[in-house]
């Protein structure tokens, strides 16, 4: 009886079993993540973000629109407070997604670029957040000095 040969057979069978078990495990796992599939969720959230900015940028609305929010922004102690209507409307939209949001206002102040974070929307995003922005022609001399065009930056995450 050749004992050397026995080892080779066992190795072959063991290797086959390993491959079969590995394949079976992959096949049985319900979530097979591929990069493009996880990117699709980001695309969906990003698109919703653009939609939100587009929908609330209504020039005819007063306090609830982006321009009205910037014009009627109040500030103090380093905090920036959006009008109550705007905060309520944006919260209602975010709740409907559902998603969390952070809103930053970015403008050019003579020689430097400045950033203000809205008080009610100042949570720190998670690493898989997406960011959308919209440029709005609006000014607020008290809180956003020298601002003519303001970038409203919305960061969304779930």
């Amino acid at each position, binding site marked *: 009886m050749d004992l050397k040969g026995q080892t080779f057979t066992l190795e072959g069978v063991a290797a086959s079993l390993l491959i079969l078990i590995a394949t079976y495990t992959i096949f049985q796992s319900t979530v097979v993540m591929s990069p493009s599939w996880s990117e699709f969720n980001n695309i*969906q959230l990003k698109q919703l973000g653009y939609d939100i900015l587009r929908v609330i940028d209504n020039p005819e609305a007063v306090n609830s629109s982006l321009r009205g929010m910037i014009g009627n922004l109040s500030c103090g102690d380093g905090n920036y407070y959006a009008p109550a209507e705007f905060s309520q409307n944006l919260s209602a939209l975010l709740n409907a997604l559902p998603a969390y949001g952070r809103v930053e206002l970015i403008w050019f102040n003579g020689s430097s670029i400045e950033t203000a974070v809205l008080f009610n929307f100042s949570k720190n995003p998670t690493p898989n957040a997406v960011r959308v922005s919209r440029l709005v022609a609006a000014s607020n001399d008290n809180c956003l000095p020298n601002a003519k065009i303001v970038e409203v930056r919305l960061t969304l995450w779930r």
Partner: protein
Amino acid sequence: MEDGKLSLDLLMGLSIFLFTFIFVANFLPGVFADVRNEINLANQAYRISTLLVEDPGYSSGWYNITEDRCRTEEFRPGLAVYDLETGVKYNNLSVEKIQTFARLLNNTTCIERVRFYLGLNLSTLGGQVFRFNVSLKNLAGDLVTYNRSVLLNHGDKIPVTQVVRFERIVYLDKWADNCNVTIEGQNVAIADRCVAKLEVSVWI
């Protein structure tokens, strides 16, 4: 003298291993077929939602098409409002166009034409035929009604299997019955607009 000879056991071991390896190599692409399928569906859902939300449709008067003329006329459904001065108003949907779209989807002949013109019937090119469903809901998740009838919840019946859905936030050019949201007990319109959620579901 045993050196230099292949034993039968070695041959058997190798052949079992190779047989399994080839089987797995052939089998693996099939394992990921579902995921690839979903990605394909996701593309379609994204494409259709963009067409509906950001395109006014073709021709400019496509929403005058009646059910008996949908077979003979060429059209592309798009629900966005077109303004002669400012052009296409993205995300602003026309109630009139939505009503026509819903009517066409309700008709067994016209739904096939809509499917074809939206590029969801690729059978003539040797591709797949996609099923789809489009609905318009308010932010609370209820179907939007206009004059007490549901505005848009049409298309194929959504199955329990794999469905990919893409959502868009839109606003209507007329006031529907239930587009306001309730905030602190008050009925509020988001940014003074009738805001709703358009959901496009696609499956095979």
